[in-house]
């Protein structure tokens, strides 16, 4: 039979640049916000204008940077632990059904406990240092990673299982050759959720009580009615979360690409 030359060109066309649209929407939103504050003459301690927020961001940059570093440190430490544990438990739950049956409900329960209760408890038990913050971040990030990974690892594919079995693959080989690669996209979507949780998680736990960090800085800004500083704080949190998200996307692309030519 002749070669079919007209195949394989499907993914060559470029996706249209839709990325610009959210930027435009955001820009319009910021402009409206500025206009609204100017027109209605809203007091800055109630709602600061975007310009005031950016001014605060600039004026307070030194302090903001020190606090940001503390928060980022806690978030990354917690995230790192959560990733390692999430992958390990994801694999265990995906491979051994009894482990899954035993642990899954427990993990779900941990997610139903309000963080706002846990954070002060940890502060009481462990003080105001880094450790309670890291534990909170781990608690928040572990769940999406392990659960999405497990879900994709156990996604049934009877045909593939049968083919592999006939080829002589045992449980572990099937798992390694078919299940894990197939579940990587699930793992990465879990990671994307987790990284956006990590910064927020650290901030919330600082909020309850800390010496340094964006969370405690926020409460100070609030109690002294420096609303613009509060907003500047939020801007930093958004930028950090987006940056981590983007980083996961880049790693995902690299990994899937490397997977292609096994």
């Amino acid at each position, binding site marked *: 039979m002749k070669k079919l030359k007209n*195949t394989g060109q499907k993914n060559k066309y470029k996706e249209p640049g839709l990325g610009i649209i959210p930027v435009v929407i955001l820009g319009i939103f910021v402009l409206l916000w500025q206009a609204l504050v100017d027109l209605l003459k809203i007091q800055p301690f109630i709602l600061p204008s975007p310009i005031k927020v950016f001014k605060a961001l600039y004026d307070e940059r030194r302090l903001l940077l020190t606090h940001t570093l503390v928060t980022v440190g806690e978030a990354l430490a917690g995230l790192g632990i959560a990733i390692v544990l999430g992958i390990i438990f994801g694999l265990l739950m995906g491979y051994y059904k009894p482990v899954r049956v035993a642990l899954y409900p427990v993990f779900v329960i941990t997610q139903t406990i309000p963080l706002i209760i846990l954070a002060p408890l940890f502060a009481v038990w462990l003080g105001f240092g880094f450790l309670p913050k890291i534990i909170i971040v781990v608690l928040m990030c572990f769940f999406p990673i392990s659960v999405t990974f497990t879900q994709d690892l156990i996604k049934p594919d009877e*045909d593939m299982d049968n083919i592999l079995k006939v080829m002589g693959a045992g449980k572990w080989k099937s798992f390694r*050759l078919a299940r894990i690669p*197939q579940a990587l996209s699930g793992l990465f979507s879990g990671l994307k959720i987790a990284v956006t949780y990590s910064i927020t998680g650290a901030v919330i736990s600082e909020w309850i009580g800390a010496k340094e960090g964006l969370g405690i800085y926020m409460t100070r800004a609030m109690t002294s009615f420096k609303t613009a500083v509060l907003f500047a704080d939020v801007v930093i949190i958004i930028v950090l979360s987006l940056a981590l998200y983007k980083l996961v996307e880049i790693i995902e692309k690299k990994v899937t690409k490397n997977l292609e030519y096994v």
Partner: protein
Amino acid sequence: MDNSIRIKELNMVYNGPDDDGTGLGVLQNVNLEVQGNEFVSILGPSGCGKSTLLKLIAGLEKDYDGDIYLGNDNPRYKRVPVCYMLQKDCLMPWRSLLSNVLLPIEIKNGDLKKARNEIQPLIAEFGLAGFENYKPRQLSGGMRQRAALLRTYLMDGEIMLLDEPFAALDEITRMQMQDWLTSVWEKHKKTVLFVTHDIDEAIYLSDKVVVMSERPGTVIGEIKIDFQRPRKREMILTSRFSDYKKNIIELLRA
């Protein structure tokens, strides 16, 4: 090596979650013999248990009465290597065509480097030359199916169990695949058990067509196809071909 298939008084009942305990008869008293290097098609209405029959032969299910012998081995008690393929190509989307095809060798911990060199002529014969590094999604349906067939061929077994391998293809591609399969088979000769619900396909490809009834499936007729080999596409226009077809349709209607 003896690569015949013998099936004796095979019965299988599926105990579903919502039946009265008598179970759902899937296969009833199936007797079947396939000689070594014979190409036999199993033809029957959908749901007649023909796919289940292949699963039993492949050793994937063991909950049945009766006996299956592949040569002298019984797949109920011992893993007998067979080649097995489904309608779905089951190619791994993250692997290149070549590493998909080499999967059976990888699973047996075989020498991949050696195999890669050895299968070069086969790659060409299966119409896949030049596409070794392509991903399954970049290939046409026919090529994917040929890649799956080559992977199936590389599973070490002298018996090929093909479960409607061309059913998902369009008519024209299916025709090309049938022509190509007969020519490859006539050259390499393995025992083939080919499940289909396409009457023309069954007659054109096979030495023997086994017709099965609706559930519970049982063999209601065997028709020997006496066309010479190599098979030619023109055969399907002859009156003998029509006679075979008439015969089969009558069996299916009865």
